[in-house]
């Protein structure tokens, strides 16, 4: 049936949620109507044989549901991730069966590890062809199973509304995550009576465990008694939209505050209690003093190995309180003394009632002393190098000075760690980076997604010369949509982080890390995107000024020092309190090869 008349039917589009509006539509139309009922306005995707009916239906709803055609399905899923992380909404991407579906997997895995809410819709061959090795048939359910929060194969049109409702509910509730819905072609073509009911609960799924009052009181008494408490926070604060609650708790508690990579921007960087980033390339003070605090208060973070380094030497002297929404994270890596399950947006206000207002000035001063050492040995050198080569840190600092409220999207590698170390954030959801999976190629499509989500904010992608080439084709999306995304390519002509490890841990044997790069300016020209290249320090400020004030998209290539290293670093296998401030790693031990 034709659906043009339905585009103007408000009952279907907006008010169908609780009203029983029965209307016979095709499966494909029900997919679109379900998306609209969930408030989706933009989807990223790539058409192909098995998903063609859905694309055909999409055409009739173009004014309500904008489809962004990417240039590779990996671009679609990363763009949906960028969209989700910039907006807090569920990101949606669509791909066809077979290669279209498998191309999504990297991004789905990335979203799984970084708890990003996604609904990925893939086409599938006709139900009667399943299991026959039909053209572009692949069992995407089994392939995506370990990296999805939930997945489901729809073989009947009548299932579509309820399954999509369930998909959105699962993706966004509790600890968010990616959901994949595989829809066979016959289900897209067949008719059903459309009636959308938003899913609000599932019998086997408890997204928000109720906070245990006893645990809260135990936590409060530990916090009140602590002399040297350290609060470490992660993305849970952002995902729970609990920034205000976190700030209120943190200020009442008075403890130093350290962030994981994904927690960055949950708290303004200039907050007086903020002491920096944790982890392998984090800041000296919070890493070192993790092994001196008497109480470690972990909020919405999961003790990733890049944060804890060697667990045998991680905060052994401290009592540990863990606030998390996911019961499977409790005692997974670090054994805790008190676990407070639940959404931090609910648990923190409960906790505050029992917390004494406190200050820990002398304890905070210990952080300041170590920060001064780091500033002297590393930061000053990074920001004011004596060599002619431009440092990555200078570029980030220059961006801070000219535009301190952009959404920064990074790729993975040295530039990512430098950005996390030096970028300054004013508001939440200002850093979008691939944390758990470390996916090179993430930056460009994720920046595109972020810009579609937040056209009101400046979006700056910071990417290396390696990562940009993994998804460079997505410049086509920027061109097609005249999307004003700014891309800074920090070009050191190496796969810098791998090269750094080769220098430090592999006897300077630079196996396959030096790159011959194309002329990035010419590539940008090919896509009609304004661009410039900078190779001297005195051009940098002006170049960034030009880029940020340019009305459209812009690619700025900065030629940076070729063989620079990111310091400080916790060598693999070392303890968090054994941070190396300079390249003197003779005490690096063989056993750490196992890391």
């Amino acid at each position, binding site marked *: 049936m034709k659906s043009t008349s339905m585009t103007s039917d408000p009952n279907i589009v907006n008010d169908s949620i609780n009203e029983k509006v029965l209307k016979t539509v095709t499966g494909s139309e029900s997919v679109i109507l379900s998306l609209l009922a969930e408030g989706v306005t933009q989807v990223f995707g790539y058409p192909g044989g098995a998903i063609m009916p859905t694309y055909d239906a999409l055409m009739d709803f173009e004014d309500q549901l904008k489809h962004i055609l990417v240039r590779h399905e990996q671009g679609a899923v990363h763009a949906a991730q960028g969209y989700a992380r910039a907006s807090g909404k569920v990101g949606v991407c669509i791909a066809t069966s077979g290669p279209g579906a498998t191309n999504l997997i990297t991004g789905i895995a990335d979203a799984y590890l970084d708890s990003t809410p996604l609904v990925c819709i893939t086409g599938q061959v006709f139900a009667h062809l399943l299991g026959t090795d039909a053209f572009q048939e692949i069992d995407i359910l089994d392939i995506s199973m*370990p990296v999805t929060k939930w997945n489901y194969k729809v073989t009947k049109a009548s299932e579509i509304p309820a399954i999509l409702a369930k998909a959105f509910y699962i993706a966004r509730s509790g600890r968010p995550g990616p959901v994949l819905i595989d829809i066979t072609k016959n289900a897209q073509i067949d008719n059903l009576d459309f009636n959308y009911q938003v899913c609000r609960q599932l019998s*086997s799924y408890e997204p928000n*465990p109720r906070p245990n009052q006893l645990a809260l009181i135990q936590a409060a008494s530990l916090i009140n008694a602590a002399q040297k408490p350290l609060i470490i926070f992660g993305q849970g604060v952002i995902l729970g939209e609990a920034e205000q609650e976190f700030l209120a708790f943190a200020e009442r508690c008075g403890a130093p505050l350290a962030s994981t990579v994904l927690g960055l921007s949950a708290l303004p960087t200039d907050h007086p209690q903020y002491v920096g980033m944790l982890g392998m390339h984090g800041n000296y003070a919070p890493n070192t003093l993790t092994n001196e605090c008497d109480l470690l208060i972990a909020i919405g973070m999961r003790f990733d190995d890049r944060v804890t380094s060697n667990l045998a030497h991680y905060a052994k002297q401290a009592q540990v309180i863990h606030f998390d929404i996911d*019961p*499977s994270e409790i*005692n997974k890596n670090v*054994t805790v003394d008190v*676990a407070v399950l639940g959404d931090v947006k609910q648990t923190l206000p409960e906790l505050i009632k029992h917390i004494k207002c406190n200050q820990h000035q002398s304890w905070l001063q210990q952080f300041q002393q170590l920060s001064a050492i780091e500033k002297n040995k590393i930061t000053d050198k990074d920001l004011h190098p004596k060599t002619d080569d431009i440092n990555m840190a200078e570029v980030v600092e220059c961006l801070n000075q000219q535009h301190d409220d952009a959404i920064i999207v990074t790729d993975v590698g040295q530039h990512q760690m430098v950005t996390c170390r030096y970028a300054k954030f004013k508001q939440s959801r200002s850093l979008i980076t691939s944390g758990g999976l470390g996916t090179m190629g993430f930056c460009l499509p994720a920046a595109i997604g972020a810009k579609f989500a937040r056209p009101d904010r400046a979006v700056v992608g910071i990417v290396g010369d390696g990562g940009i080439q993994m998804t460079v084709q997505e410049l086509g999306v920027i061109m097609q949509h005249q999307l004003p995304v700014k891309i800074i390519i920090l070009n050191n002509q190496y796969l810098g982080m791998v090269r750094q490890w080769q220098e430090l841990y592999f006897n300077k044997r630079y196996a396959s890390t030096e790159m011959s790069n194309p002329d990035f300016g010419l590539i940008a020209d090919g896509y009609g995107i304004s661009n410039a290249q900078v190779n001297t320090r005195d051009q940098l400020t002006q170049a960034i000024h030009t880029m940020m004030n340019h009305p459209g998209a812009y690619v700025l290539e900065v030629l940076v020092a070729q063989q620079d290293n990111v310091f400080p670093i916790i060598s693999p296998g070392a303890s968090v309190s054994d941070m190396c401030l300079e390249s003197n790693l003779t005490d690096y031990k063989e056993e750490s090869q196992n890391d």
Partner: protein
Amino acid sequence: MIKNYTFAIYSNDQAGILNRITAVFSRVDLNIDALSVCESEQTGIFRHSVQVCCDHQTAYRLSKQLERQIEVIKAEFQPEDDMIQQEVALYKIASKSMLEQTLTEQIMHRHHARVLSMNSEYTVIEKTGNRAESQALLEELSTIGVLEFARSGPVSISKPMTIESIQADMSIFKQHATCEPDEGLAVEYTF
């Protein structure tokens, strides 16, 4: 301490759930020693009995990761000694040798086995018991000649009275989390 643990994993009836369950074990390189699936006392809810050899901390962590699966309602684990277990073994022997040798009857009698099916060609003997018992019977019958042999994995049921019948809304199982993976916390939830 490494020992045999039996997981009782309750799930909704959804295609692919078994893969999600087994993947939790294979991901940490654990081999599943025995697996059986049946509908539980509650219609539409399936019980997956999985036996693996691991330490208590791993078992605890895996139970949480199993419960993280959307369609899993609860995942409990118990050391093997805290379970009552039974296996079924079937032995096919030629009816000719059955008739020719009175020994067979004696063996069956001694082992508390019974004839499940018999015709002129072959006889199927059934033995219910533990692994060692069915193995002992297999070895004795081998002297006569066993044409085919099959043995189920253990079917287990917990000893203590901690597991109540499954309620319609089982989400309450997921609402309580213990924070200490101490020995003896095998059954996480009590009501």
